[in-house]
């Protein structure tokens, strides 16, 4: 059973993504901010991390950067989720090592599920 770490500061979205992905059969661990995310990632070593960018204290970009610099999480698959639709941000995400960049306003919940399948079912 694949393990997904969901990093999202909005409580509702956290609930929604968790519920939906659990229904697909994945084990979901959540983190509400960057610090918690980093600690949890190293401790739990998830197969996939779904990472929100707009968060208080540390932004998702910084979390991504640190994750990629940490040996345990260097290779973990990371999907960036964000409300930011600027091209520059997409490039930044990709340059920092994200495996996929999804824009919340453009993708539906089902698209997210599909993307998660792509990443995790392939591994199986």
């Amino acid at each position: 059973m694949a393990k997904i770490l969901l990093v999202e500061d909005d409580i509702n979205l956290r609930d929604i993504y968790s519920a939906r992905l659990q229904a697909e059969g994945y084990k979901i661990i959540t983190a509400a901010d960057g610090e918690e995310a980093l600690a949890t990632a190293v401790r739990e070593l998830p197969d996939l991390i779904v990472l929100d960018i707009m968060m208080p204290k540390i932004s998702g970009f910084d979390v991504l950067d640190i994750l990629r610099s940490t040996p345990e999480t260097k290779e973990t698959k990371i999907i960036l989720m964000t409300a930011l639709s600027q091209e520059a941000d997409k490039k930044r995400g990709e340059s920092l090592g994200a495996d996929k960049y999804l824009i919340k306003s453009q993708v539906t919940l089902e698209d997210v599920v599909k993307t998660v399948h792509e990443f995790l079912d392939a591994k199986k």
Partner: protein
Amino acid sequence: MKSNYSVLAGVTAGLNGLALALAAGLYFLRPELLQSLVQAEILAGGSLLVLLYFASLHQLAKKRWLAASAGVMALLSAANLGFLIIQTGGLDSPFYAFWLLGVVAAGLFGTPYVLALLAITTAGTGLAFSQHQFAISFMAPRLGQLLITAFAAGLAEWIHYSFRRPTPVPVTQPAVKAAAKNIATDVLMSRMADGVVVVDGNGVVKMMNRAAEEMTGWDAASAVGLDYHSVLELKTADDQPAGSDHDPFYRSGLERKSLVASDLFLYSRSGHKIALSVSVAPISDSSAAAGCVAVLRDISKEKEVERQRSEFISTASHEMRTPVAAIEGYLSLAMNPKVATVDTRAMEYLTKAHDNTKHLGALFRDLLSVTKLEEGLQTTQLVPVNLSQMVKDVIADMEMVAQKKGLTITYASGAAGSDRSVMPIYHVLADPERLREVMTNLIENAIKFTTEGGVTVGVSADPKIVTVRITDTGPGISPENIKHLFQKFYRVDNSATRSIGGTGLGLYLVRSIIELFNGRIWVESQVGKGSSFNFSLVRTEPKPAAAASTAQPTAVVTPQPPASTAVAIDGLRPAPVPVGQTILPAGGGKTA
């Protein structure tokens, strides 16, 4: 002597001349009055001098070398008169009267002549006095003559001054008015809150008012005479010196028209930075290097207000979208059988709620875009954008969406019959983010309203403009709807399309953006056949730096064999080339 010589002077000189001519006539007709050949020669010489003087009168009319010619002539005629008088008896000469006449003329010819004549007269009298052994009895009547000469000279001088025409410099009302205006202008200049700088055709500062002194940290006395670059340190937002693209002085001089630049920053001598609005106007003059006048306005406060407003809008937008996303998410969970179980009734209501939520989200998104756009009208910088690359990117992004509906999306190059894997590189003057919005919006629409077939994107260009054509095989748009298509909140009132949804703001936004770029947008459509949305933009050349950053090979024009080769060269995966389906039948398609 700056006086203009009047006609009176000319006439008097004429009389003098006539007198001499008369003397010459006397010599020849009544020789008993004149005793020697020398006299005759002098008379002839005198007449010649007078003739020369008359000849120089045309100079009088032309006012050229007036003082010199009149003076010379006057002196010569004075000398001649003098000799004449001496030869005919000195102070006893009957020609002494003419001497007086000459004095009057002298008054009209100027002070030096008067003084010269007075000197000569005094010397002559002194000489005669000595010849008569300084006898007082001789001197007495002669003294009278001397005094009369002096008086006549004085009188002549007075006449001369009062008859003199005004000098070329009019020291009258207009001059006083002008002086007063200058004072008013000075006061105005020094009191103005905005800086004023006048620069000549060579870029040299000619004038700077007090506000400009304060802004730049230079005082006018030191700044005048320097090149404006040293005094006005202008930089763009990214801290680069304002080059020829951004320098309003340079551009104004080049294009010879007034313009305003509101995106620059001025660094004062002490390093203080202020946001500036520079308004430059050329000083109209027939010569090319006439210079310009610039008004500098500190817009730091305005910029701060603008920044706060933008920040408010972004925060507000994020705030509003959050609950909408949550509602939408929960509704979709409730509707998903994998997560929750609901009866058919509930499902129906949930679905409707969900649709409305999506509509709400779209409205927020579009409303914010419109607000941002209307606000950003002044600050948008148009730069060269690689349109071809952008088209490729957007098509790549949209492919998934199109495929979900079973539609194809392809790129078609402008020239009919050319190999489709070749992508000529066109650059346009635009704002990259907004242009992308336009393209995404139009293609999204095309996909949304098409049920089968596909979308074709074509790009064509002439030396001045680049045209993009987005064609779909949808239901088409009727002429009545086309009229209102780009209006705010307009949605086609049609049972078939009503269910498709939309906010009615998309096309309004698209048109606003295209027009912001000085472009044109229009639609061609036939009900039942499909629609074609076209927009044209100003063509430009790529900036060297921009070309490097997009890492595009320039001008890939050589025709390529099959798609695989094209991949190797420009990194684009080949677009699918289905046969027949995406080409708009009869009259549309590639001939953009």
